[in-house]
């Protein structure tokens, strides 16, 4: 069981990393893009904007944690 947990933990760290909110935000942005394109809106601008906002928010959280230590 602990080996399975270690294996799962490895892949979680590998793909998701330190901030799960970034991976979750990427998924939400992709789904939103898919919904918009399906309804006829060529939403090429959504993902780049979401990526920068997610990155900025994650960096600010990390900087805040670093300062608190």
């Amino acid at each position, binding site marked *: 069981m602990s080996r399975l947990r270690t294996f799962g933990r490895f892949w979680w760290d*590998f*793909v*998701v*990393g*330190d*901030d799960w909110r*970034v*991976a979750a935000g*990427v*998924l939400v942005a*992709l789904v939103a*893009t*898919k919904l918009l*394109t*399906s309804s006829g809106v*060529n*939403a*090429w601008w*959504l*993902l*780049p904007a979401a*990526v*920068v906002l*997610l*990155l*900025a928010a*994650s*960096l600010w959280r*990390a*900087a805040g944690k*670093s*300062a608190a230590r």
Partner: protein
Amino acid sequence: MSSTVILFLAVFAASAVEAVEALTIVLAVGVVRGWRSTLIGVGAASLVLAAVVAALGPALTHVPISSLRLVVGALLLAFGLQWLRKAILRASGFMAQRDEAIAFERERAEAGAAASHGASSMDWYSFTVAFKGVLLEGLEVAFIVVTFGSTQGHLGLAIAAAVAAAVLVVVVGVIVRGPLARVPENALKYAVGVLLTSFGTFWGAEGAGVDWPGGDVAILGVIGFVLASAFALTWLLRRRRVEMRLSVEQA
């Protein structure tokens, strides 16, 4: 510059960075405990990595391109943003820069302190550390090779870029006979983070049904946008760090 050249450069840079880190581990263990078991560990890990690429690479070419781009884009974005996040935190001083000389000394001390392998011909400590080091660093490269190669339809080129970088790092490591502390590792990681994030954005959006203005040339615009945003965020974080220091000094 075509997207094929960018693909080669991205895989080459990512592989070079990971190879430098793996070389530090292998050198430290090999120098302290001997080379035989260490090199067997390196060989075993290389075989596993080759098997991963050989199994996943051709299999992904059978997936419909729009689905492949959506999944690969999502994975590359999650993965690339991790690289870029760490690189920006390092560049702005919120995280320590990686130093191969320090890493080498730490690995060497650990290898020296570990129990001797006695009369056995196989040193399992050396084997395990070298195997894990090469496998863990190499898995990131294998992931990039498989995703970039299969999505662009240039798996062979992606493999060649990764192997060329690894061979170059090993040759330079043998010549220098030490960790490659002078390689601008943190700058390379920053560049790789920008490229992974850009390609993840480009392919993810395409997979979700977007038509990029200008077609494939739009990747250059995405790279420019991600790079400019990363520089701006680094600058803002550096300012924030200075302000934090000043407020601590004044308190």
